[in-house]
């Protein structure tokens, strides 16, 4: 029998792996896709809570759809920024991008 806790632990695992990726990679593209992984873990949490705790109302699933919209917008903007950075400078490591430091 698969319970709610199974899904939550799986989501926690994906979240921690994504967090590890964000913390350890210097390539901006990998950071962006690791953030996607973290967002997906949150989505699993919301969907699982919605199905198990409030099965009659699809509120959590609605939140997942809105999160997908935000994630799509975020990825589009992040990748546009990445392309601009790549065109205007030779920098590929994100810890050397200091142009917007104020």
């Amino acid at each position, binding site marked *: 029998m698969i319970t*709610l806790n199974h899904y939550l632990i799986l989501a926690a695992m*994906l*979240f921690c792996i994504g967090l590890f990726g964000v*913390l350890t990679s210097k390539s901006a593209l990998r950071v962006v896709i690791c953030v996607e992984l973290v967002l997906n873990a949150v989505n699993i949490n919301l969907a699982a809570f919605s199905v198990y*705790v409030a099965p009659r109302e699809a509120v959590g*699933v609605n939140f997942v759809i809105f999160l997908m919209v935000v994630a799509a917008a975020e*990825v589009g903007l992040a990748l546009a920024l990445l392309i601009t950075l790549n065109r205007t400078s*030779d920098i590929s490591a994100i810890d050397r991008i200091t142009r917007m430091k104020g």
Partner: protein
Amino acid sequence: MSSDVVMFYTYALVAVAGALGLVLASRLIHAVMSLFATLFAIAALYLLLGSEFLAAMQLFVYGGAITVLVLFVLILTRPAPEGADRTRKGTMWTAGGVCALFFGVLAITLGRADFRVAAGQSHDAASLASILFSRYVLPFEIAGLVLTIALIGAIVLAREDDVLDTPSDLPEGARVPGTMTLGEAAAAAATYVKEEAAEGLAPDAAPSPGSVPAEAGGAE
């Protein structure tokens, strides 16, 4: 073991293995492929949860659009030198320790947590839509606005700077050879309509002065 348990553990294994591959792969193209495996497994988990609309959206938005977008950026950008996208070994061990500790705390807490699980039939796409288009219709519209603004912002950020700009560094009154301003173009078009188009299609008709700018070489 029922088939649900087998399917859950299979998809969970694929998802976690893909996530590990995404984090640990040395080449970015392998990382993106691992990401695709993870997103696919998560879509299967949504199906297992009984929300088939969410599974379809996961495949469309994440598996389709976002993966292809990341692949395009991978193609369009210069590759990083081999092994340059890793932090120092000490940082990796520290981050791994912190993440493992965080996961340990979460797993212990979640393993002992007892949620008030309600029994009942799972919702379908129709009940999802009935909430989305009644109670959440304003956030729905705002989400569309957010997507539009993000699209415009991405275009503004990523386009070449000199494609659409007017040559603003020219001194005042200077002319680029062979061009005319909008007013001159309108005047020339009016001259053409009045004087030349009325003459029909005479093969030896010379253009009348004023209809073609002299710099363009038409009235030599």
